[in-house]
């Protein structure tokens, strides 16, 4: 964990997550400022818009704009939800935010609740990080006891309460409407949109869902101003961002850096490629983002616009690094199995298509590929994309298309010679147990 940013800086691992530590770091000053200066909800949203903060969960949608979609004068309850259901292979930033700086998320959510007039919020936490869920519950209790949550916060007439809800092993619940279904105590199957959550969300009421890191950025924006946040990054890409670097690097972990930092610098921070081997490919934004070859990636800067121009997505900021010992067919097989396993089964193209993708990649990897298999894979992806309720089908298809596009020769070699282009012993050596 290393930070030049605003969320993970000044932290000391497991020792500084409590309320008292957070207050020492300037915590809850933003909330106090809003209450003391009676800053209006509209002004809070205007400040967030000014910051150019874009959703940190993957889509990169402007946060201030999203907040302004909530109906102002709605009779009845409005809800807020935090998406901490982090299960996209490669992404592990929200876990560090929640376990090392949980109050930044709580403060961000209270401010969001104030700005949108929500009376209640839920933080949906990935089931596999249950220890983090338990800690978050403790942090909530601290906030409640300090009068920061509940009725008449800090003596004002603003009331807001916040609770933790855990997942229990379903990637699809990271999709915002599936997440709402799951909070309602149902199977996490995405809803058809429209209506969007801002008009029909949790329990059918207006609801806004943001990512953990998005909420954790809010206190800084209110405390220091939207302009200050924007200046940390680059135009249209405000702020610093957490990048989760995994795979073949010497120091895997989270790196909080300004948006617009060259990829080469991030790779160096992460200790460079392991064993002095050559970089082969990078998935820059979580397993759903198209893979990019090393040469393209080395010219990119880490921000939404640069990565998108290079043909991929910054997504959640999960950077999966693969060196020359990687068999790209095997790498894709692992990803395809994941989407096959995690498809919720609601839409036929995704339920059936992800199975086809996995089985065909699996047979290529195992020496049973057929000459027209690459055409078949491309045809299956074409029949999934855009034909499903949520984006999981697209997420399963984009890796397949991009792996074939950039590493088609390796797939063709597999099909023709019934074996990997990269020798087995090189693969084994490259991906053996590595602990920094």
């Amino acid at each position, binding site marked *: 964990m290393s930070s030049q940013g605003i969320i993970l800086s000044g932290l000391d691992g497991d020792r500084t997550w409590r309320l008292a530590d957070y207050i020492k770091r300037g915590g809850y000053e933003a909330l106090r400022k809003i209450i003391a200066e009676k800053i209006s909800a509209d002004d809070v949203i205007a400040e967030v818009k000014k910051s150019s903060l874009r959703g940190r969960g993957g889509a990169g949608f402007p946060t201030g704009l999203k907040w302004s979609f909530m109906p102002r004068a709605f009779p009845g309850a409005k809800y807020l939800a935090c998406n901490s259901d982090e299960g996209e292979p*490669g992404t592990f930033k929200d876990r560090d935010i929640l376990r090392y700086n949980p109050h930044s998320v709580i403060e961000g959510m209270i401010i969001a609740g104030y700005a949108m007039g929500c009376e209640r919020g839920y933080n949906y936490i990935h089931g596999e990080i249950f220890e983090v869920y338990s800690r978050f519950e403790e942090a909530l209790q601290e906030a409640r006891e300090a009068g920061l949550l509940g009725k008449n916060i800090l003596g004002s007439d603003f009331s807001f309460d916040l609770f933790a809800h855990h997942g229990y*092993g379903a990637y699809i619940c990271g999709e915002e409407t599936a997440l709402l279904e799951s909070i309602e105590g149902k199977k996490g199957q995405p809803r058809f949109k429209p209506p969007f959550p801002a008009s029909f969300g949790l329990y059918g009421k207006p609801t806004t869902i943001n990512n953990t890191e998005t909420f954790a950025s809010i206190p800084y924006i209110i405390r220091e101003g939207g302009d200050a946040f924007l200046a940390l990054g680059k135009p249209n890409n405000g702020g610093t961002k957490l990048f989760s670097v995994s795979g073949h690097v010497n120091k895997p972990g989270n790196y909080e850096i300004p948006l617009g930092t060259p990829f080469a610098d991030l790779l160096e921070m992460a200790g460079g490629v392991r064993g002095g081997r050559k970089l082969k490919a990078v998935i820059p934004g979580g397993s759903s983002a198209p893979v990019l070859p090393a040469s393209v990636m080395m010219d990119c800067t880490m921000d939404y616009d640069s990565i998108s121009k290079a043909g991929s997505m910054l997504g959640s900021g999960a950077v999966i690094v693969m060196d020359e010992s990687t068999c790209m067919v095997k790498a894709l097989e692992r990803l395809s199995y994941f989407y096959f396993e995690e498809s919720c089964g609601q839409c036929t193209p995704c339920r059936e298509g992800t199975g086809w993708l996995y089985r065909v990649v699996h047979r290529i990897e195992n020496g049973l590929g057929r000459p027209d298999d690459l055409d078949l894979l491309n045809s299956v992806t074409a029949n999934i994309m855009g034909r499903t309720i949520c984006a999981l089908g697209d997420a399963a298809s984009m890796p397949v298309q991009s792996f074939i596009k950039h590493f088609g020769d390796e797939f063709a070699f597999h099909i023709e010679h019934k074996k990997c282009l990269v020798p087995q012993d090189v693969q084994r050596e490259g991906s053996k147990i590595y*602990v920094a």
Partner: protein
Amino acid sequence: MLSPESLKKIDREIAKYPPDQKQSASMSALRIAQEEKGWLSSETIEFVAKYLEMPAIAVYEVASFYNMYDLSPVGARKITVCTNLPCALSGGVHAADYIKKRLGIDFNETTSDGKFTLKEGECMGACGDAPVLLVNNHHMCSWMTEEKIDQLLEDLKK
């Protein structure tokens, strides 16, 4: 059917949601039931359904949809190893192979003494800690070298 302690925990969960939305507590109620019983039998699921005033089928749908619920008996210790791509690049598959060898079982099998069940997991959101595994769903173990796996298995046998 469930202990008073478990019911107290479930009541705490119910209180998190609006009074007319008791069913929102179904996920945590099933988790609490599984912690007590080890796995979720039809009887346990039906009990949870009655307690939350839900149709049993609705609770069964939840139990069968989320993969950390066990609908059949598992060993006293369930070990789930992540073998997804980022973990695999840092030895996740090797770690799983090592555990298989040590326990003499494959994925989805239980040792003959009923002590260990091995599962293959999907992304746990801790790729930087690879190899990663979970013990009984809730305890995450990071950076699992062969030595640390040996130590863990020893500790869990006690």
